[in-house]
């Protein structure tokens, strides 16, 4: 009995272009598996952003659009509303990094949540600007060394990191906000359930659904893939606790 194969929503002859050990590949595979399970491939429009997630359209076999840096939620809003006006409802989700979602596009992201736009946002949090070489980002943890904070992040000079999932959970238009991680098998499988729930909330029309995923960046953290996962398990989950912060069905 076949228990695993390449999801149909992944382009069969494409290879991921991420660094070795990067969790982006796992996250994209999970999204593709859920698109398969919910039979959404024909009616999905994915919105990619700038950052390591920029090449999403090379891997996902669904309709994709590239948004300006940080504006993925605004672009997704337009797509969703325009198709709804034509009575041709589409499943729209954004796939962004933490720099894109929580720094450059914070206004677009936050106001999409406040308006309760019926879209899903997936934010990959690797605590730096990975594609441009590991600069200090909005989610860089206190004391973390990056190329633009060689002595480590300090509160006096750089301020404090943003806890995106908690902030989005405070918005009244949000239907679902959760944080998940990809450092071991158990968490990968629970991340899949969380993304699936977020997708189902959009299908049911409940409002803005959001998943923040703690992901490793072995190249810029200068750690092996295994040690990167240990760092997430031992350090990052203490700063960014995992869990569901808002769920309109259970609140």
């Amino acid at each position: 009995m076949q228990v695993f194969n390449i999801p149909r929503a992944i382009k069969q002859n494409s290879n991921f272009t991420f660094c070795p050990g990067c969790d982006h590949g796992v996250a994209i595979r999970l999204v593709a598996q859920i698109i398969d399970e919910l039979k959404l491939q024909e009616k999905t429009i994915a919105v990619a952003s700038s950052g390591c997630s920029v090449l999403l359209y090379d891997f996902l076999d669904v309709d994709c659009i590239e948004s300006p840096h940080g504006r993925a939620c605004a672009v997704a809003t337009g797509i969703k509303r325009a198709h709804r006006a034509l009575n041709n409802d589409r499943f729209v989700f954004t796939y962004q990094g933490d720099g894109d979602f929580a720094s450059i596009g914070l206004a677009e992201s936050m106001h999409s949540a406040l308006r309760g736009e019926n879209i899903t946002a997936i934010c990959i949090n690797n605590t730096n600007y990975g594609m441009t070489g590991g600069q200090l980002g909005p989610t860089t943890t206190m004391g973390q060394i990056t190329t633009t904070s060689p002595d480590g992040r300090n509160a006096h000079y750089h301020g404090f990191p943003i806890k995106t999932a908690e902030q989005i959970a405070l918005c009244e238009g949000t239907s679902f906000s959760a944080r998940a991680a990809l450092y071991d098998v158990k968490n990968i499988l629970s991340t899949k359930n969380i993304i699936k729930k977020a997708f189902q909330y959009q299908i049911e029309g409940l409002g803005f659904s959001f998943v923040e995923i703690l992901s490793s960046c072995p190249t810029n953290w200068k750690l092996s893939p295994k040690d990167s996962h240990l760092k997430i398990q031992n350090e990052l989950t203490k700063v960014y606790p995992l869990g569901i912060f808002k769920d309109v069905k259970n609140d």
Partner: protein
Amino acid sequence: MSYIKLNKNKCKSCYLCIDACPKNLIKKSNEIGQTGEYTVEFKDDENLCLGCGVCAVVCPEIAITEVYKDE
């Protein structure tokens, strides 16, 4: 018989599957892969593979393309 199919051309030698396999059936091979490091190989001479698919779950490159489980 449970087994996996592994595409060495996709392997980027992160070795996450080596740590994940509960039966230690995945090891470094002698072939150099696309990143200049040794790729991994699957060797199961004694039919120990459980077909649990854990290796496929952790692989970021979908280099483990198929997993078959004995019924």
